[in-house]
């Protein structure tokens, strides 16, 4: 047998195979192209703009200044407002998240005790209605209801002989009101996932408990709540990654009088980067936020995988 030149050597054979496959599948790439282009234009190209965090970049000037922007926000002129915003972001987001989980779980548990399916369904529908309202609509509703001049709440207060309170301008009231409004809007929607989780609890557990003489309350504490813990953890962890992003809810409800308690990182970035057109400084703050948020998202995703993995029964 004469040794012929090996035209089917592994390397060139594989790459020809791959090239042929690509040619065969070219329509898939074509179909994906618009999606790819959108990602590049609106998500990847802006990433190149990150370099402006190291510039003094305004409509009048564009020069490299190294870490000066960061010095500015961490230690310098803007540091007090910056760290104030960081503190508010963490407080408002976390308080909202924790309150939200508690409210939604408690409400789901109570709703579950309503036996009439039609009534339960009607209550559910009403309670998750506000989720579909925009924050502008929500803020508008409460701006009117809480208005110090003839707003519903203040009218009631005056009936009891109290002075009207300007809730949204008052530093003491703003945070509780914000959290309450958020609950008004989102509690109903949050109960969906817990109600769904409750329907998948094995009914035999309840029957066994019944036989052992446990009342409804004990059944709730020893069966329902423990079964909800994985869901609660997943919800908590997944939302932890988004903690720094809070913006629209604050933006529509805040005003200069309450910046101390209400200003969050994104609203601060907006005022600096867009209103004051200090693009460089705005980019620097945004970079800091994106970086920390990325770390949060990666860490919390790892945790959520662990938890989901452990409850495959």
């Amino acid at each position, binding site marked *: 047998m004469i040794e012929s030149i090996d035209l089917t050597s592994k390397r060139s054979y594989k790459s020809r195979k791959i090239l042929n496959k690509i040619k065969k599948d070219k329509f898939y790439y074509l179909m*994906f192209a618009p999606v790819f282009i959108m990602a590049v234009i609106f998500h990847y190209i*802006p990433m190149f703009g990150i370099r402006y965090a190291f510039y003094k970049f305004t409509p009048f000037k564009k020069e490299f200044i190294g870490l000066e922007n960061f010095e500015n926000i961490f230690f310098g002129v803007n540091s007090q407002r910056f760290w104030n915003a960081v503190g508010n972001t963490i407080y408002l987001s976390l308080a909202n998240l924790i309150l939200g989980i508690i409210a939604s779980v408690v409400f789901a548990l109570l709703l579950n005790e309503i036996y009439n399916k039609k009534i339960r369904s009607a209550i559910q529908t009403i309670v998750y209605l506000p989720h579909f309202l925009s924050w502008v*609509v929500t803020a508008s509703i409460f701006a*009117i209801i809480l208005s110090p001049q003839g707003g519903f709440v203040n009218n009631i207060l005056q009936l009891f002989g109290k002075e009207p309170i300007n809730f949204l301008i008052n530093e003491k009231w703003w945070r509780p009101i914000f959290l309450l409004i958020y609950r008004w809007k989102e509690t109903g929607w949050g109960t969906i996932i817990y109600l769904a989780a409750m329907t998948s609890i094995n009914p035999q557990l309840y029957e066994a408990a019944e036989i052992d003489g446990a009342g409804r309350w004990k059944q709730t504490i020893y069966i329902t709540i423990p079964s909800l813990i994985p869901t609660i953890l997943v919800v908590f962890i997944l939302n932890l990654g988004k903690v720094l992003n809070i913006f629209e809810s604050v933006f529509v409800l805040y005003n200069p009088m309450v910046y101390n308690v209400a200003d969050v990182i994104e609203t601060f970035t907006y005022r600096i980067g867009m209103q004051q057109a200090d693009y460089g400084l705005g980019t620097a703050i945004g970079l800091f936020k994106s970086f920390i948020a990325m770390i949060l998202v990666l860490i919390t995703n790892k945790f959520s995988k662990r938890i989901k993995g452990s409850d495959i029964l």
Partner: protein
Amino acid sequence: MKEKFSFKPGYRGRTVFRILNGIFMVLVVISMLIPLIKILADSFDRTTTYGINLWPKNPSIIAYKTIFSAEALYRPLLISFFTTITGTFLGLLFSTLGAYVLIQNDLVGRNFLAFFIFFTMIFSGGLVPTYLVVKNLGMTNTLWAVILPPSFNVYNMFLMKNFFEQIPESLFESADIDGASPMLVFIKIVLPLSLPALASIGLFFGVQYWNDFFNYVIYITNTDLYNFQVKLRELILSEQTLTDPSIVGFGNSVRNAAIIVAMIPPMIIYPFCQRFFITGITMGAVKE
């Protein structure tokens, strides 16, 4: 112990609980509804003074008539409809195309493409750099700035992909045997089977576009291009300085009516798609 509604010993605690729970639910429903009812009532009310009435003191539909006749008000409404419809169409287009390609397990570079798309959820350039890109493309103060960027939504693409993955493999195989091109399979097989997903994800996009305010805040200063949400905010904030003669003078009913109009479309459509939300949400949390 059987479930019985009675005050006899043994059932007493349970019955008391059920009564209290019932009262609690009534209170919750009332507190959810009172703000909405008040706004609704005031939108039909011509009086200029406030009160705690939940029914109009001076009923009239002048506020709604004004919204549909004053250009300063119906123009933003039309713009909202326009951006919502085109945005939803584009959003569905990108989600379905993206999802369809990403489910092709044997596509060369598929994993790279998936990561490329997914990475945008982990890290982003930030508010200012994104604004600068849009500005340099000349899209600021045009409707493209509010229609295009939000149409690329990775989360919705994910939901769509999950849905497509449930289409039986055999359908794709038989189409393959018949020599169908990817586009044909997409149009004739995948899309018709995905109507529930298209409906619910379409609704997600629709609500997102209708309620959009954030993109306007950043990209648009031209008041002629305002959508209804932005106009609503302007109405609320400029309480003392309303000078447009076509809308001033009807008390506060116009502001309230604007709120109602701004909330109606999402609220009407969502009950039809209720079932899909539940599956959509639990799809993410509990994947079989």
